[in-house]
């Protein structure tokens, strides 16, 4: 009995996302379980990286798959991949959740130390020592300090490794927009991660290069 179940699961694991979704919508629990295990990681990480909270990551993952159960029939494989569809849904829920959290903060909740906007603590550039856990934490905090639009492209393109085209599909914008947002987001991250003294030095260099462009 168990061997038979494993054999069926193995056969289904070779199916693509669209086929699994079709079976899932027809009531196949195994197909749903396979699809969940295949796609939950990316959705969880996207939500956790966007919000900086593991519990929000869990909540959003659950919301996204409940949405898939209800509205899975609205997915059109000719318009894009199921992965992009799910990330698009996750993005919608994350934005909604972050707005709700912002409203709570405005109502008077004070920020925890973890949620405070990022600012470099020492003169040393955090990027120079990537082996330290603090360095990675600095990068994580710097990402959380970015505006939402820029954070989305950093999380998708840099942390999730999603292509420009798929990112454009998830965000509902042009590929050129993704490129320019990513360029600006990286520039902002560099500014945040660079020590203050280095920033002044860079600013003078920028003036010099601006003259050069003229």
């Amino acid at each position, binding site marked *: 009995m168990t061997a038979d179940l494993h054999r069926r699961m193995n056969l289904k694991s070779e199916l693509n996302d669209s086929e699994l979704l079709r079976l899932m919508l027809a009531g196949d629990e195994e197909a749903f379980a396979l699809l969940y295990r295949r796609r*939950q990681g990316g959705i969880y990480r996207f939500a956790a990286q966007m919000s900086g909270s593991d519990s929000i990551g869990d909540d959003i993952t659950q919301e996204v798959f409940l949405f898939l159960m209800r509205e899975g029939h609205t997915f059109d494989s000719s318009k894009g991949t199921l992965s992009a569809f799910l990330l698009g849904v996750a993005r919608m829920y994350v934005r909604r959740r972050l707005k709700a959290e912002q409203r709570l903060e405005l109502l008077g909740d004070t920020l925890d130390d973890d949620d405070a906007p990022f600012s470099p603590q020492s003169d040393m*550039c955090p990027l120079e020592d990537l082996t330290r856990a603090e360095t990675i934490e600095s990068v994580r905090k710097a990402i959380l300090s970015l505006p939402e639009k820029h954070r989305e492209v950093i999380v998708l393109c840099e942390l999730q490794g999603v292509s420009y085209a798929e990112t454009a599909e998830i965000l509902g914008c042009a590929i050129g927009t993704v490129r320019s947002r990513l360029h600006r987001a990286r520039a902002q991250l560099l500014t945040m991660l660079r020590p203050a003294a280095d920033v002044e030095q860079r600013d003078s260099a920028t003036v010099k290069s601006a003259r050069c462009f003229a």
Partner: protein
Amino acid sequence: MNCQKFETVVSELARGQMMAAEQRAEAMAHTDGCDDCAARLRDEEMLTRGLQSLASQMEPREASRAVEANLLAAFRARQVVVPIAKRKSNTRYWLAAIAAMLLIAISILAFRWNNRSANEPIEARRREQAQPPTPDVNDKSKEQFARDIPKADDVDVLPQRPKPKHVRQVNLRRADTAQVANHVTKEIATDFIPLSYMSASSLQDGGQIIRVQLPRSALANFGLPVNMDRYNEKVKADVLYGVDGMARAIRFVQ
């Protein structure tokens, strides 16, 4: 390549994205001669490594087991609920469709019934006109009434209404013109009743309709019921005058 052009490709260069080999070579050559751009590329590469470190640290993280358990429970529960919901929604659609069809059928029947009841008096009158008239007591009173009705020039037109609306030149080519007029003005009116034996045949010649007010007792002269409580009140009537200025027919209006 200059610094400005280098700035547009530095991110792609640091991220190791696909780009034309020629463009890459040009950018690298530019960093050899420009210290600022070389430093800029180093920063970008460091940022890329920082982001990759964060991504690899996050890679093994997944949603908790509880989420999967909750979702599977929700999926099983849904499998029981879905067919019932589907059946309900289908029933609702069928009921709506049947209700719509009934409504259409009732509307058609009502429309036909209205048309038939509207045509019946005209048909009856046509049949009546086809038979030779037999003089009776009522006809005498009609003759008397025709003499009593004033001539067109002497009629006192209602003061509260503008004259052009009441004095209309009509061409009575069809017997049911009065019905059409009734629909337009939204008034309830009797059919035109000839005032003499000659009048019935001369109704087709055309003429002029004039709105007058008469004592309610005039209704009795035409065999119409009179409300004795409102005996002293006046009733409105349209009198059809022939081209010779003589009253041909009358209808009562409410």
